[in-house]
């Protein structure tokens, strides 16, 4: 078993003292970030990425992946205790988690959430271990045209499946790509879009500037506005006996949890979908297949198990395209991908050949992160409930300072810090008008890659656009992308057709 050999090597890397310490620290920090209302994995990873320059790249990504994981566990805590989702990925957990807490079963809800997260995480990491190497092997044969087609597919999923306003989604993709084009033209070497020779634009706009602006400053402005008013924290009695009792009950929800895990994993692979829709879908399916659908929304533990297993599984799923194809499966993995570029690791299938220790160390650390997140979560439930009482007027300014100083660190240019503030304010104002911002972050990360691969492919074909549709692999991918781009149009036509049919039933 070649995979097992690789995995064992990976464990040897993940269990090095520094890396193991980073996993544990990352999980604890992730749980904290996830538990804070308004902060999720993407905010934590964006704001803390500059801090990881302290450790080698493998350690850095292990740390950030552990935060990603921990945040998925932590999101459930505020969903259950406050009835406010700790992150958008934990929205579905409030449906049954909150009623359970109000009925005095907060501890059981928390334990169910943690255990379901563990199952979801573990099932999906096993699936990941099995799927990743063959997919990477196939992707090794991809050329410029295929790369470009994959990126088109990634953007198309936002339009076809994202569910946001179509022109606003497209605008977000376009502006992200334009921002990525600022700086020196990669082929001719000429400066472009530097706005009257402002030297700060010469080195381009780093994706982190946009990510910290939107997910740091912008998100905080949003949370400050929406978190006014008092919230009520439920009480949870946590004793060893009650924990064991909850764990025993958990096996009754095994089927639901497994369903959530597998569903979440596959939904997570799609760039536009990810953990939030994945957990909502898992909740819906759990309700449909349940023998007592009417008990959902009134405190059914299965309604906690399904979305929590799905959101953890989705976070692993979103790493699959990031590592094998170089296409991020979620905004958080988009930031991880950008980080890999900073650390000098070319994302894509070659990683599995040239940086095996990095890839397998990361995969093994995901197994470890799951175990630690579960242990820390269950052992320190009272501590995380205390965290929820932390006043936002202390946390918010500290996060602002972290954004400013962290944003300065990578390029050491005040110009970038001003841009972070501008993007943050703009992002906040745009978000209030329902402009989706995740596509822009994905686009600024993928932009340079998309432009290079498009220009290379066009050069090889002498400007023939059809090259993307004619090659055996890129063709079907492009056609899928086009179908996804047009999907909203089909839906609209179908709705119109139905409406007209309903208007004159005789016709």
């Amino acid at each position, binding site marked *: 078993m070649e995979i097992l050999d690789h995995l064992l090597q990976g464990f040897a890397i993940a269990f090095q003292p520094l890396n193991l310490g980073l996993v544990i620290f990352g999980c604890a920090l992730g749980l904290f970030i996830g538990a804070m209302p308004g902060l999720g994995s993407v905010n934590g990873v964006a704001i803390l990425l500059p801090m990881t*320059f302290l450790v080698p790249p493998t350690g850095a990504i292990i740390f950030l992946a552990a935060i990603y994981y921990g945040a998925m566990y932590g999101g459930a805590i505020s969903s259950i205790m406050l009835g406010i989702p700790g992150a958008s990925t934990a929205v579905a957990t409030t449906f049954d988690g909150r009623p359970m807490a109000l009925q005095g079963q907060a501890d059981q809800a928390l334990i169910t959430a943690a255990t379901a997260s563990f199952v979801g995480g573990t099932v999906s990491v096993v699936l990941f271990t099995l799927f990743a190497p063959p997919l990477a092997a196939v992707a090794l044969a991809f050329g410029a045209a295929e790369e470009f087609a994959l990126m088109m597919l990634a953007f198309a999923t936002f339009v076809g499946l994202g569910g946001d*306003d179509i022109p*606003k989604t497209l605008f977000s993709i376009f502006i992200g790509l334009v921002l990525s084009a600022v700086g020196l033209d990669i082929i*001719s070497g000429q400066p*472009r879009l530097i706005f009257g020779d402002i030297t700060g634009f010469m080195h381009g706009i780093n994706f982190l500037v946009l990510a910290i602006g939107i997910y740091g400053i912008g998100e905080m402005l949003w949370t400050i506005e929406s978190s006014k008013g008092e919230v009520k924290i439920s009480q949870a009695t946590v004793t060893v006996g009650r924990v064991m009792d909850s764990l025993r009950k958990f096996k009754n929800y095994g089927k639901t949890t497994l369903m959530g895990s597998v569903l979440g994993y596959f939904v997570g692979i799609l760039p536009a979908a990810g953990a939030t829709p994945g957990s909502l879908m898992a909740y819906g399916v759990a309700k449909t297949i349940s023998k007592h659908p009417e008990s959902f929304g009134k405190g059914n533990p299965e309604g906690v198990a399904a979305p929590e297993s799905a959101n953890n599984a989705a976070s692993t799923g979103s790493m699959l395209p990031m590592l094998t194809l170089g296409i991020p499966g979620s905004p958080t993995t988009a930031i991880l991908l950008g980080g890999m570029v900073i650390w000098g690791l070319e994302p894509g299938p070659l990683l599995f050949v040239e940086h095996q220790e990095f890839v397998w160390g990361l995969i093994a650390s995901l197994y470890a992160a799951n175990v630690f997140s579960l242990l820390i979560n269950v052992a320190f439930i009272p501590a995380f409930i205390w965290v929820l009482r932390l006043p936002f007027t202390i946390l918010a300014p*500290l996060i602002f300072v972290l954004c400013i*100083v962290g944003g300065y660190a990578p390029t050491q240019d005040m110009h970038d810090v001003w841009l972070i503030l501008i993007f943050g304010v703009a992002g906040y104002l745009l978000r209030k*008008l*329902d402009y989706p911002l995740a596509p822009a972050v994905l686009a600024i990360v993928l932009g340079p890659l998309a432009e290079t691969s498009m220009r290379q492919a066009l050069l090889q074909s002498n400007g023939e656009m059809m090259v993307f549709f004619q090659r055996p692999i890129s063709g079907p991918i492009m056609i899928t992308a086009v179908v996804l781009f047009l999907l909203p149009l089909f839906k609209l036509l179908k709705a119109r057709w139905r409406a007209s049919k309903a208007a004159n039933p005789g016709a």
Partner: protein
Amino acid sequence: MRRAEFVMACVLGVLSAYLMWKSAELPIGWIPKEGPGGGAFPFWLSAGMLACCLWILLRLFRRSSSVSRSTDTYMDRDAVRLFLLVAGSLTVMLLLIHVVGVYVATPLFLLFYMRFMGGHRWFSTSTIAVATPIVAFFFFEIALHITLPKGVTEPFFYPLYDIFL
């Protein structure tokens, strides 16, 4: 809400047109043996942005998007006040960083925010305001060797560098 949507789409539309015009400073057509010119990629993308803005305006006038039907206010008085306070204090902090450096600007910002906006006690406020720059100094300057901007306070740090570096 409708007015905000209209203004935003117009502002973004003007921005798109400006970006198109700036991109066109580089060749946007096909250069033989070199492929598309350096300006082509941003030019056509900005054109796409402009098209999206027109589309958003069209949907606004036809009332076919959810925002264009909303009767909520975009930002009420409270939201505007809070937004201006936070964004304003951040701007002042950045300006101060240029003059007196990070190590003076951030404690001032923290003091202002926690004491006057949060109404926390002087003790907790000042502890955090003093501890934050110290932690930042050791993390960035000592561990990462990244010098944060210090403005006129630069000379005060020379003895610290002598001790720790």
